């Protein structure tokens, strides 16, 4: 018997996660985007630390006026864009990304617990991995290579199953439809190939 949640539970839960994320953060759910943001931060490719939040906001408004020829001085400040609010917004990303990643891990535990398989194990018990390799080291290597390929593919496609599959499809983005078709069809073909070869 499968330990996966039935689709009529899983699908609404996924939809709820996407919607809550949008309501709370006003951002599309994008797991690979979070990874990218963390890597960018580690590389130092992030918001300039040389200026205070107030200076950053003022510099941006000045640059917008000078570069694009628009007049902003008479516009009211955007909702929630007080200096206190901007400080929290600008300081949040690193913590926010880490909390998000922690939530993914915690979600896995919750899912396993709800599914009645909550025992923690460091062994790989997949029924599919032995098709590729029988050795534990080989299993870890296969997962590592798979992870690298997934990372490469998601960067190349500009998104992953959450960004393209959940958010992009629901917004009817053609690029997301193409990306989702590509990675799902590749998955199906790979499964069939493994079935034939092993």
């Amino acid at each position, binding site marked *: 018997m499968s330990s996966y949640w039935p689709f009529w539970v899983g699908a609404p839960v996924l939809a709820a996660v996407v919607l809550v994320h949008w309501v709370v953060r006003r*951002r*599309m759910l*994008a797991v690979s*985007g*979070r990874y*990218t*943001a963390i890597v*960018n931060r580690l*590389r*130092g*490719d*992030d*918001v*300039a630390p040389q*200026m205070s*939040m107030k*200076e*950053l*906001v*003022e*510099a*941006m*408004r*000045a*640059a*917008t006026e000078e*570069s*694009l020829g*628009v007049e*902003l*001085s008479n*516009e009211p*400040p*955007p909702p929630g*864009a007080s200096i206190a*609010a*901007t400080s929290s*917004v*600008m300081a949040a*990303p690193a913590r926010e990304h880490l909390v998000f990643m922690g939530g993914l891990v915690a979600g896995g535990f919750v899912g396993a617990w709800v599914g009645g398989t909550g025992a923690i194990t460091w062994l790989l018990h997949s029924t599919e991995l032995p098709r590729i390799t029988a050795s534990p080291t080989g299993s870890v290597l296969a997962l590592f290579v798979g992870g690298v390929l997934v990372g490469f593919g998601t960067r190349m496609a*500009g*998104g992953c199953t959450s*960004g393209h599959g959940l958010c992009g499809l629901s*917004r*009817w*983005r*053609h*690029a997301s439809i193409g990306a989702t078709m590509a990675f799902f069809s590749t998955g199906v073909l790979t499964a069939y190939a493994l079935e034939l070869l092993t």
Partner: protein
Amino acid sequence: MAKDDKDCPHITDCPMFTLFRVSGTEEIWKVRYCLDEYEKCARHELNQQGQIVPIDLLPNGRLLRKGRR
């Protein structure tokens, strides 16, 4: 719908985009670069070339500097 197809693929993880939002200039930059003509964005161009994107690089190629307001 057609407009969404032109969204910049980095719109969810661009650090500059956060600054657009909090400075109240989001809509202006978004319309000029992030949605319609993101291939002209200097940040996007550098990213496509595999180079590190300077943190203070604006989409029009200028660098963000302290303003006089």
